[in-house]
């Protein structure tokens, strides 16, 4: 995907020069390995900061919410699906956007890379087409990218953007993931008390920093329920019950909207696999409503409409 960088710069420069857009949102190369920084470019001369590689695992749709200007934005499969969701939910208008489509081959799991070098400090990561070289103080190790994909990317079925104005390259082949929901099925088989233990353990290290919530483009409520204070809805300490309330309600709020972009999991400073909450709801909306978020602008989301043949087995 490295070759996309030059193309992104060229497109962004053209768009800004012609005045097609007021701003361009993309990534610039990060100051530490395996991190890139979202950047807003307004000057065509500054478009050379734009960058793309396998560490662009945030969701830039997050930066579109309630903007009123004309925006150019890079979007791979999941990001484009969030943009579609944003448009449907009236957070931004399609006419405001110039979407530069990225055929995506997945993001590298930075934690897996650190594990692979036994936690030694990584000073640089050089990506090549299908491989990447990890450089440390007194070591260099080469890895195949396919073995280090983020978990969500390894089961992704929408690598190509669903909505775009221009593509930076030809679409990539979509993956036929064996079983997208294997992990969810394991949890579904647990007894209620085992599930309770599983999720309690899962979030035991949570520090309530809300990085998972804030990095997610779906979370744009003016006041999140955990931030309500008059009256207070949820305790703000690290009491496990309050922390669990936050995680469960956050997940439910994403039902039928989550594109499994993995940003929440990627950014957690204490490495909680928070997708274990949202994935179950993705599975349910797919199985019960044949719905995957953000694939089309033409249809209202599953939880947004009533159909007489909707799944209703839960009604007693």
């Amino acid at each position, binding site marked *: 995907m490295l070759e996309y960088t030059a193309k992104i710069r060229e497109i962004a420069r053209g768009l800004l020069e012609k005045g097609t857009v007021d701003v361009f949102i993309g990534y610039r190369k*990060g*100051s*530490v390995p395996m*991190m*890139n*920084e*979202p*950047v*807003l470019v307004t000057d065509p001369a500054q478009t050379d900061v734009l960058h793309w590689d396998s560490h662009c695992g*945030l969701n830039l749709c*997050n*930066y579109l919410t309630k903007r009123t200007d004309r925006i150019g934005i890079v979007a791979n499969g999941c990001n484009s699906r969030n943009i579609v969701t944003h448009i449907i939910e009236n957070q931004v208008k399609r006419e405001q956007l110039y979407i530069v489509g990225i055929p995506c081959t997945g993001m590298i799991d930075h*934690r897996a890379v*650190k*594990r692979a070098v036994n*936690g030694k*400090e990584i*000073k640089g990561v050089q990506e090549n087409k299908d491989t990447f070289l990890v450089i440390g*103080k007194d070591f260099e190790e080469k890895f195949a990218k396919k073995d280090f994909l983020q978990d969500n990317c390894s089961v992704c079925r929408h690598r190509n953007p669903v909505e775009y104005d221009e593509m930076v390259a030809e679409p990539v082949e979509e993956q036929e993931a064996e079983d997208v929901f294997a992990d969810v099925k394991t949890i579904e088989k647990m007894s209620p008390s085992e599930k309770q233990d599983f999720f309690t353990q899962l979030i035991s*290290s949570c*520090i*309530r*920093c*809300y*990085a998972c*919530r*804030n*990095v997610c483009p779906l979370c744009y409520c003016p*006041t999140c329920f955990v*931030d309500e*204070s008059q009256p*207070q809805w949820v*305790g*703000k*300490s*690290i*009491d496990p019950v309050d922390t669990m309330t936050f995680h469960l309600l956050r997940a439910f709020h994403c039902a039928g909207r989550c594109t499994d972009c993995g940003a929440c999991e*990627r*950014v957690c*400073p*204490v*490495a909680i696999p928070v997708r274990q909450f949202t994935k179950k709801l993705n599975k349910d909306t797919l199985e019960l409503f044949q719905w995957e978020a953000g694939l089309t602008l033409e249809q209202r989301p599953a939880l947004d409409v009533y159909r007489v043949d909707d799944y209703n087995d839960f009604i007693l």
Partner: protein
Amino acid sequence: MKGRLFTKKEWDKALRELSKSQKIFVPAKEKDFHNFTVLDNNMEPDFDFQNTRLSPKSIVFPQSERMFEYTLDETSPDAHILKEAPKDFPPQAVVGIRPCDAHAFQIVNVNFDNPEYKDPWWVRRYRATTFVGLGCNEPCSTCFCTSVGGGPFSEKGLDILLHDLGDRFLAKAITEKGIEFLDKIGSGKEASEQTLKKAALEAEAALGKISSSVPTDRLKEKTEIELFDAPFWEKIAFPCINCGTCTYLCPTCWCFDIQDEVFRKEGDRIRNWDSCMFPLFTLHGSGHNPREKKVQRVRQRFMHKLKYYVDKYGNGVACVGCGRCVQFCPVNIDIREVFELMNGY
């Protein structure tokens, strides 16, 4: 005293013995990273680490602390009377704290323990804590302690400084508290001149391994308003998602919020870490918030650390260069760049 030598085995055994009579926090590996944990028989301390993911500030300043309790039961003679939540502050020790994090406790201490205010919980816990530091033989590439008044073997804020010599620790007591702690650990072996020389050379070498630096020399001479109105804040703030990663991982962020939690007729008054990144931060009872926008909150974080603190305490910046926010900011906002911008403006 110049230094005592302990084999790592002796050290581990002595710590475990001491942990029976007092709380000892040690770095331990959990998942892919280290954090400070109370030493007990079910866990293995791991001193082979660069730094803990969370700073050890919670050992003195817990993320959530019950301050008072009260009852709303009108039939009780104590109805509506706040009573301090009972707790004690027995001696405890943090063993393996990095010099930057120990320096941070000093920086925070001036806020919680000064002639004007004495925070009763901080003061008692801070004074009851012995800080046993572990010098950094291999600082990270994101460390910049030497630019902000510290160093990989700085003794600031420490009672004892340990030096990892491979199979042994060289322990140097710095304060009376440190001498007492070492006495409890055991005598060790007097370090030879040769060992001390080798250690000094290693410490010198570690200094040279610090590859990041930040400028601070011009922060004081600028007026607050100049920096407050500087044009770069929008740009710095753009990627920020206003999460609490930087503030919660930071060893010098001390802001807290006080909350009442009531269950039926029993209430607790709890103080929790707050974060200037959060929308509730400085939200007034009236609904007004002087820092309503993201850019205002981001500016507050950096102005507090690199300007307000500098001016108020004359004690340098409120940053110890541990690099946690640099490494773990989800969107890669790098405080080193902010130093450059503010100092160079």
